């Protein structure tokens, strides 16, 4: 699972897709393709975008939702928590430390 996650994040196009889904979750394939092409000038085919989405989906970062006849892609940031829980230095200082630090 972690390998899939890092593989998914290792590609710039896929990170751009995540950026766009973070801006608005719940997009059709057409909207994602349009955003990549019009906003980011990424001339990649629909098939390629589909494959990128499949990689993101395998990593759990993208989930698809069906609403009647439509299919929407949703962002799921939960897998990213694994990274922070693994390496982020825990907050050892209590919350009251902030004002003390700013005092000369």
């Amino acid at each position: 699972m972690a390998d899939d996650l890092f593989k998914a994040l290792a590609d710039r196009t896929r990170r751009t897709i995540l950026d766009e889904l973070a801006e608005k979750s719940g997009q059709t394939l057409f909207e994602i393709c349009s955003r990549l092409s019009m906003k980011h000038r990424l001339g990649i085919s629909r098939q390629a975008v589909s494959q990128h989405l499949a990689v993101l989906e395998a990593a759990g970062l993208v989930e698809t939702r069906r609403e009647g006849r439509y299919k929407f892609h949703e962002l799921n940031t939960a897998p990213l928590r694994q990274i922070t829980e693994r390496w982020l230095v825990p907050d050892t200082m209590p919350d009251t430390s902030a004002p003390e630090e700013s005092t000369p």
Partner: protein
Amino acid sequence: MKIHLTSVFVEDQAKALHFYTEILGFVKKHDVPVGERDRWLTVVSPDEPDGTELLLEPAGHPAVKAYRDALVEDGIPLAQFAVDDVRAEYERLRGLGVHFTQEPLEMGPVTTAVLDDTCGNLIQIATQPR
């Protein structure tokens, strides 16, 4: 050469006529019976009564369903109509109960939105820069 007529496949021509005239605001141009049930049914923009006609074509051919379902699933609009202000039109149509699969979005020079025409197609509306 110029584009005189273009078409969308519709499941129910009477329902389509209602949506394209009463909701979207087009005007009926031709309505001629052809065959047992089908009609040669076209609409035009009220701003351009002699402009390009849109044919509301029966979706009876067996290839149509697979073709349209695949496009709808990926969110691909079948036709694009120009409007003065996508956001205003989006609000107006939403008020009339129209379902959008894509909210107004600036796509570089154009602003677009995508709606369901209730007859089996996704339709894009767009505002071009002036």
